[in-house]
């Protein structure tokens, strides 16, 4: 996709800089929001290029990674691109100064705020170029004033982690939160909503100011929103069919369901109602609203706040009815539908309802979502996204056949590794037509193991997809062990350094420490001194024991190498590929560990969609670093993708076969988890994170060594804050990897 985009840009003939910048910056954007953004970026660049210079476009492209990081959402970033397109038509002179300030702007504004700030400047100074430039440079007082106006106090992205913890603390499960780009204001803007079980939360909130002067801090607004949305996810049990209802009936039913889920939550956590009551409009806030809306708010306040006095007596009566029904059955959405319709009839008969559809949209209770969730509720089903779960009955059959069956059976010539049935003959098969040569010699590939199936974590549903990934253990063709011997010779100086470090690490068995305060035996020399001290009349020392200390190492390590396609890239500023560097580092490490005597296994992985995760063993446990192992290491190749979670789980099982006290999994990778059949960059990252947690539950420590200089953020999220190391200078890898190992296993 990158190449297609670059090709298209190149064809515009606006110079190399644009193409180069595109290729350099876009991968980082993709890392944040997914590959589908590439097309959007190319499209935007094309639109902009007719209205501005290549230099400005390069500036725009280099702004994208940071903007993507702040927005961290595909739709929001698309919105940003649309904004740029609009701005270039209205105020082309302002583009360059604005892009120079873009980091500052996105740190203070959400997309909505940025949009308003930009459009104000673009529309006001449409003709006045000097003023336009001053505005977008942020050197005019007016531009700073508008900036302050559009600033929002509490940004979602700064509080996301807190909100995740908050929800987990109360509900004991994870919820998925994403930002939406409406700025929420009381009377206009986007509301929070729930879709496919994911909560979409406005990307910024101001403190909520009541007309009376009472203020609710932004973070509490967020908590109220999340708590209400979580209440829906936990309590709403079925969808409502809205086809036959008029908008007023829909509003009533929605309100009753909102109240039902909130009241159920309050039963468990009584204090939650404080959050929600604080965000209900007070009397002064309701002044200019339609009476229908006011009546609904009246009911809502009455239901939640025991201290509130209802304005309408029919609300008081209805609440009694509602509470009675709730006592009978509070855990089904069905009662909300019936009661909602009943409420509508009551309000129609008691008051004169006159309200337009647009006024209905005004939602004074700001923390409640738009309720599309209850009107479009669907049974969550991971089959629905086109990811097909293949039931066991359709999985591949493998069996061993005898020579007569092989001779008589016809095989399907086009069937490969994905065949429905695979027969294996234990001996070699010499067909007549091949003249004494076996089929194995001609067509044989390295044997593949039986498939291993692993669950994969779906972070949006908070459930495992059962047996989603299929892993096969394979063998690569052996290379020449001399390659490894040469590596060891080439790095002799590092090897010597390691040798010294190793000597300090080697288990010395029992070591005697003299003159100890405590120990298992008497230190005779010290005793003699002590006794003579007693005779002389001075206080004897109490350090008269000999302590025997055991120096033992009880460590097993699995070094798991990422062998994906990207390892074939050249290391910047060197003649070697990443793969070659990995090989050097692993050789040195294996040699070092062999000398120490620890238990090491070396493995590798790559993946070709979830149906084919490939796992390679180069050195099993308890093998010394001999020529056969060296040969296998020499033969490593890079290709395909990185489905890390399944590989981590399989590597963990390997480690569990060992009995040592300390078990460590070292993952050596040059990029983040990704696979060709997965669009959402978050999915495999979250699955890898889950795999690391599973291994921790079994006592295995996972540590990541990343060769990707931009790795910090996602690697920290997957492996944990102190469980990774990013190596910028790859030349140092052969030296640092063994050093890291030594410090990890001391």
């Amino acid at each position: 996709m990158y190449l297609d985009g670059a090709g298209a840009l190149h064809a515009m003939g606006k110079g190399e800089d644009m193409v180069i910048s595109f290729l350099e910056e876009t991968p980082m954007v993709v890392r944040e929001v997914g590959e589908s953004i590439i097309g959007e970026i190319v499209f935007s660049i094309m639109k902009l290029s007719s209205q501005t210079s290549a230099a400005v476009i390069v500036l725009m492209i280099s702004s994208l990674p940071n903007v993507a990081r702040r927005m961290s959402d595909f739709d929001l970033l698309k919105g940003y691109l649309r904004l740029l397109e609009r701005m270039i038509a209205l105020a082309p002179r302002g583009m360059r100064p604005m892009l120079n300030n873009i980091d500052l702007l996105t740190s203070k504004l959400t997309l909505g705020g940025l949009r308003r700030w930009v459009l104000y400047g673009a529309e006001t100074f449409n003709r006045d170029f000097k003023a336009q430039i001053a505005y977008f440079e942020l050197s005019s007082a007016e531009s700073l004033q508008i900036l302050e106006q559009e600033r929002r106090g509490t940004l979602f992205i700064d509080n996301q982690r807190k909100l995740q913890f908050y929800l987990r603390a109360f509900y004991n499960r994870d919820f998925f939160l994403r930002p939406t780009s409406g700025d929420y204001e009381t009377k206009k803007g986007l509301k929070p909503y729930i879709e496919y079980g994911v909560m979409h939360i406005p990307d910024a909130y101001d403190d909520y100011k009541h007309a009376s002067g009472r203020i609710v801090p932004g973070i509490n607004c967020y908590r109220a929103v999340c708590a209400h949305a979580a209440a829906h996810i936990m309590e709403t049990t079925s969808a409502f069919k809205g086809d036959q209802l008029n908008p007023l009936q829909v509003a009533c039913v929605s309100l009753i369901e909102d109240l039902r889920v909130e009241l159920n939550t309050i039963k468990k956590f009584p204090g939650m109602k404080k959050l929600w009551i604080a965000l209900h409009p007070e009397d002064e806030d309701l002044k200019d609203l339609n009476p229908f809306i006011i009546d609904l708010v009246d009911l809502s306040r009455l239901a939640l706040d025991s201290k509130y006095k209802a304005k309408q007596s029919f609300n008081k009566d209805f609440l009694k009815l509602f509470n009675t029904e709730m006592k009978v059955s509070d855990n089904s959405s069905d009662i909300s539908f019936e009661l909602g319709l009943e409420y509508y009839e009551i309000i129609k008969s008691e008051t004169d309802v006159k309200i337009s559809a647009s006024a209905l949209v005004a939602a004074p209770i700001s923390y409640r979502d738009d309720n599309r969730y209850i009107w479009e509720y669907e049974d969550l089903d991971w089959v629905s996204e086109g990811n097909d779960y293949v039931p066991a009955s359709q999985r591949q059959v493998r069996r061993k056949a005898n020579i007569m069956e092989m001779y008589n059976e016809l095989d399907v010539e086009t069937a490969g590794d994905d065949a429905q049935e695979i027969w294996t003959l234990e001996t070699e098969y010499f067909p007549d037509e091949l003249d004494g040569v076996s089929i194995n010699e001609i067509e044989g590939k390295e044997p593949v193991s039986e498939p291993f199936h692993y669950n994969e974590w779906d972070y949006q549903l908070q459930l495992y997809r059962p047996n989603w990934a299929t892993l096969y253990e394979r063998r690569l063709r052996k290379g020449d062990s001399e390659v490894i011997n040469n590596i060891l010779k080439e790095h002799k100086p590092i090897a010597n350094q390691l040798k010294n470090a190793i000597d300090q690490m080697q288990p010395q068995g029992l070591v005697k420490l003299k003159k100890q305060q405590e120990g298992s035996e008497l230190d005779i020399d010290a005793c003699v001194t002590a006794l003579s001290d007693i005779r002389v009349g001075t206080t004897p020392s109490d350090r008269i024991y000999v302590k025997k200390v055991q120096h033992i190492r009880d460590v097993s390590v699995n070094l798991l190498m990422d062998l994906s396609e990207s390892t074939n890239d050249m290391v910047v500023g060197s003649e070697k590929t990443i793969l070659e560097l990995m090989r050097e580092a692993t050789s040195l490490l294996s040699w070092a560990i062999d000398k120490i005597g620890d238990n090491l296994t070396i493995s590798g992985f790559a993946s070709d969609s979830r149906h084919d995760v490939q796992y390679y063993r180069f050195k099993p446990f308890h093998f010394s670093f001999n020529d056969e192992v060296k040969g296998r290491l020499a033969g490593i190749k890079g290709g395909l993708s990185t489905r890390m979670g399944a590989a981590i789980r399989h590597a963990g099982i390997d480690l569990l076969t060992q009995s040592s006290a300390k078990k460590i999994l070292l993952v050596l990778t040059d990029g983040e988890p990704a696979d060709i059949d997965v669009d959402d960059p978050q999915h495999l990252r979250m699955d890898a994170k889950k795999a690391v947690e599973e291994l921790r539950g079994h006592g295995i420590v996972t540590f990541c060594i990343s060769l990707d200089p931009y790795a910090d953020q996602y690697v920290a999220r997957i492996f944990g804050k102190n469980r990774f190391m990013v190596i910028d200078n790859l030349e140092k890898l052969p030296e640092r990897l063994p050093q890291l190992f030594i410090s990890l296993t001391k």
Partner: protein
Amino acid sequence: MNELDQYKIAEEPFYQPQEDEIEMYTAAYMNRMPVMLKGPTGCGKSRFVEYMAYKLDKPLITVACNEDMSASDLVGRFLLDKEGTIWQDGPLAMAARYGGICYLDEVVEARQDTTVVIHPLTDYRRTLPLDKKGELIEAHPDFQLVISYNPGYQNLMKDLKQSTKQRFCGFNFHYPDEKTEAHIIAKESGVNKETAIKLVQVAQRARNLVGHGLDEGISTRLCVYAGQLIADKVNQKSACKIAMVNPITDDLDIVDTLNAAIDTFFE
């Protein structure tokens, strides 16, 4: 028994049973069976042992185990004074000799070469060899050994060997259910039942975060501390923050979450 008089429990400690552990322990003691108590920190293991020692009217010698503990710390050593060397019994030897209950708390912290010292005492032999002294102590008929540890996942690196574990019968402890825990907190700290229930609710929020940011949840003990402060008229929210939130984590986002939880339950 004079030597062990100082270890006798003077007053009945308050203990709220969770299941039938009192009866089971009494039965175990009748057979002088060694007992293992497993559970998270601060959930009542040590209190339970104290209570049983009081009920059975036996002296209780407690040893807090740590990684630097050697076998001599348990068994005894020679000390030097102006007359020469004298032998000093360790807590284990004392309990074995004079018939007390020896309680090794957090035994998994000790090195494994130290814990094997207890093996001869915990099988049919019931003897403790003092190699340096050349003496073989036959355990007093009243002697019993009790150990405790926290089997949380972070302790997977350190575990007892099977040959040690299988000498004990095991009791599982956990934080009690809400009502019981509130009752315990109310009794221990002096707060009323309503406040105690709120403290338990806050603790449960933290327990939901175990493995997702916290290593251990808030223990009953910390709830009692908070309760004691509240009973002394300290501001309720501050008491919770000092006693329950600040000790368990340094992660600012988690601190914020737990403070929000406190705000949810307390005014």
